């Protein structure tokens, strides 16, 4: 409380104004003609002092306006995302890299599908002729690395998209339909208890080692994690009040899933998509290393495996593919995390 003595209100010869408003007759319809906001304030600022102490006109829509926020979720997400410089730079570098995998064979002196094996040319360090040197069989490494990069990116991105698609569809159903929960949960526990490498080895032996088969079987195991993640999120949103409201309005399961729940999962889905790419690339290198992947279409994993026996003497055989693999995986990891942070409303204004 202020101790400053303000002059107490002087008794002035003024009529006493009664302030009670008859609320039953108050006009609730907003009058659109009157000026409001800044115009209104400016109009008032020109008033003489006497008028300053007169009652102002009352504008209900002005009252509604002051609390209005023009916050938009996705706009904030993008603004927030674009403030994360490192992720943006890495993302741009990745796109350039991916485009370059198509340009590299054009400017290369050697055709990757037509490399000659010549033991005399083995283990040449990078130079003007062989930009990344040659491998143990004397083949140009540059053209191999870029072709492998393209294969790896396409494989991991398509596997990732495939598993996300399957995982999200099944996860939504798993989470929303109570009767199916038990079944899927048991299935999940069952499959999850055996290391994936066992399945992959069995499939490689029984079905085949081609890139396509491996891609399909990777999808077949990766969707599980996604589905469970989605299921847990659906569980979280399922009984929120807005879904109860939809049920009260007679909305069917499909519309609730698509309109009420799916939009909330978009950020998680993108995050999982981004983070599963490094995972799939890593798994692909492991599979290549174990010899479970067909080596006729070289991927970065195959190159890393081939380099295994020689890289202690010839580190460039490791460094070239390793640098590219690291760049790709770290990029997706950073971009995914940056995006997920940007999606968190707590980081918004």
């Amino acid at each position, binding site marked *: *409380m202020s101790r400053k003595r303000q002059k107490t209100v002087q008794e002035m010869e003024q009529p006493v104004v009664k302030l009670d408003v008859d*609320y039953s007759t108050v006009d609730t319809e907003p009058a659109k003609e009157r000026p409001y906001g800044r115009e209104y304030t400016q109009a008032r600022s020109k008033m003489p002092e006497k008028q300053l102490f007169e*009652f102002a006109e009352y504008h209900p*829509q002005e009252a509604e306006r002051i*609390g209005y926020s023009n916050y938009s*979720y996705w706009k904030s997400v993008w603004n*927030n995302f674009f403030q994360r410089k490192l992720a943006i730079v890495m993302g741009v570098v990745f796109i350039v890299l991916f485009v370059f995998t198509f340009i590299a064979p054009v400017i290369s002196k050697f055709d990757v599908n037509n490399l000659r094996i010549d033991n005399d040319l083995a283990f040449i360090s990078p130079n003007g002729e062989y930009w990344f040197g040659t491998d143990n069989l004397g083949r140009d490494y540059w053209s191999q690395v870029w072709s492998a990069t393209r294969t790896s990116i396409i494989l991991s991105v398509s596997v990732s998209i495939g598993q996300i698609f399957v995982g999200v569809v099944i996860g939504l159903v798993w989470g929303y339909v109570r009767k199916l929960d038990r079944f899927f949960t048991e299935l999940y526990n069952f499959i999850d208890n055996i290391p994936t490498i066992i399945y992959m080895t069995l499939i490689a032996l029984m079905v085949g080692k081609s890139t396509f088969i491996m891609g399909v079987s990777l999808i077949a195991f990766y969707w599980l994690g996604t589905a469970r993640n989605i299921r847990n999120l659906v569980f979280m949103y399922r009984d929120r009040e807005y879904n*109860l409201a939809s049920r009260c309005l007679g909305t069917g399961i499909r519309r609730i899933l698509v309109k009420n729940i799916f939009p909330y999962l978009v950020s998680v889905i993108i995050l999982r998509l981004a983070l599963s790419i490094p995972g799939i690339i890593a798994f692909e290198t492991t599979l290549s290393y174990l010899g479970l992947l067909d080596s006729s279409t070289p991927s970065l994993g195959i190159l890393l495996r081939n380099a295994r026996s020689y890289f202690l003497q010839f580190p460039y055989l490791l460094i070239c593919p390793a640098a590219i693999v690291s760049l790709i995986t770290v990029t997706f990891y950073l971009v995914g995390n940056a995006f997920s942070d940007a999606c968190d409303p707590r980081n918004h*204004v």
Partner: protein
Amino acid sequence: MSEARVQPVDFNARAQQVLSQIPLLSARDVEVTFSLRGNKLTAIRRASLDLYEGETLAIVGESGSGKSVFTKCFVGMLDKNGSITHGSIMYDGRDLTQLTEKDWLGIRGKKIAMVTQDPMTSLNPLKTIGKQIQEAVELHQGLRGAAAKAETIRILQDVGIAEPERRYKQYPHEFSGGMRQRVVIAIAVACRPQILICDEPTTALDVTIQAQILDLIRRLQQEQHMTIIYITHDLGVVANVADRVAVMYAGQVIEVGMANEVFFDPWHPYTWALLSALPQLGVKGEKLPAIDGTPPNLFSKIVGDAFAPRNRHALNIDFLEEPPMYEVTATHNVKAWLRDPRAPKVEQPKAISMLEAQGGKPKGTDPNAYHPHLDPNREELVRVDKMQVTFGNGHKKFVAVNDVSFTIYKGETFSLVGESGSGKTTIGRAILRVNPISEGEVFFRGEKISGKISKETDTKVIRSMQMIFQDPMASLNERAKVDYIVSEGLFNYHLYKNEKDRQEKVRKALEEVGLLPEFSSRFPHEFSGGQRQRIGIARALIMEPQFIVADEPISALDVSIRAQVLNLLNELKKKRGLTYLFIAHDLSVVRFISDRIAVIHKGRIVELAEAEELFLHPLHPYTKALLSAAPNPNPYLERTKKLLIYDPSQHDYRVDKPVWNEILPGHFVYGNERELDGYRSEISI
């Protein structure tokens, strides 16, 4: 039944005390800003406040008024992105705004302690209650080992926890919400502070528990001579605890004075509006004097008086210049241009004078009011017959609703009142078929709608019964536009001829709830709580229902917004002939809006009567306890009220089985023969 008595208070004596002291803590022109991703939010806009030794100062305001942030400055606990950018807080010869984290260790807890809002999350779940209190005892009282333990047990007993030795070893999850709040208070008290800040300590609790906690805080204050700052949005609580009151709006203290001055002779239009909008002062069947709009967005710069745009009595200067503090009396200051000598001389609104005269007792009902249940041609709309709802199965089975029967007639507002966990929401949801019922039946216009029903009946039920939800933040789909949200029901049953027809219907529904039609292309998060609640009402209305379950539709809203929504509900009822099942825990609201009231306790309706009858002649001890605990916004009455505490073990139902009995026409009560006899003799007196 046990009783607790509250002492009457002499505000004039308190005022003399205040005037004779120098302030214990004195905040001057405090400005607090938060930076949120490049934007600056000014949460406190040069607020000043004094605190005097031994008093209870209540700070009252809506969410976002800055009351909580302001007091956090007194304990140096602002969030990381916030800082005090101007002003000083003098305490004990030191400026609290200049302290380092190390300096704070000598003040926080030791001198100024705080009780936080949510007792469910305020305790470490992995440490025993005893250890958590003992930590404070050891730190501030210098006791160790057995002595510290003994002191802890003494404090536990002191805050009203039975069997303190056993409770000492228990973990927070073994305590109920009210008990946990007692523990939180015990921790604060164990610090032996000079100043205790209570930040909405009872907001998360039921009314009966709230009344007990308020009593406890008052008793502890007297015993330990603490100075208390009590933060709340509830004017009834303010009336209960406060010697002095500070009203905050948009980050400023706009009026401060002794409790009687602020309640009975307020001078800021915002204080007027807050008090007038109390449903306790409303006349049933008439509109409440609501405040339009919402509190301002603090991201933008505020020119003039922040309340001006919502103020029906604003002067032109209110829009241009911020008013200074004017002195009304030596203890009563107000920040409003209306107190300027140049301003027109005014009289306070009528409602304010009524607050003192009637003390929050309603002005009575409109004698011409129509009561549907008394109409001889009354039409039965919804009938619930012996409803039982159970959750879980096997040994984990939990009966949420037990043997509940009632009838709702067309055109009436039927209220269900109970505390959290009483099953009131479950009943509402069970009628709408969202929760399955395990026993009993529900009828709509004589047709059975519970259990297995045909598809046509299902469609009919959905179209004629709708629901309004408690939390406007959670009940709208954030990722859909208002247009979709409102027309969702139309899509489901294709209730429109063409796209143009649908848009027309949406426009009409929005206008009916007082929203602009262009809002339809926006997303829910662009709106304030009151506006969102109106969107929710529009969504239900578009189905043209006859019956609406309103599940605590205003309890999550700010005080200034509540009246808007109550008015809207009443208006719609008149215009459309709607019937409401109104679910609430706040008795003052229920009294204002309902025709009949059912009181529910632990899944069972214990008393049902016409609204005024229930308030004037409550019979069941639980109803009485509930009524006695309801806060009343009149400091004199609130402080002398008799608090009744309900103890379910007072019923002896072992031999004499209780029944649901119509003791007077229209007045039902649950009890056994012996109790009913008692009730009958009570009535005849």
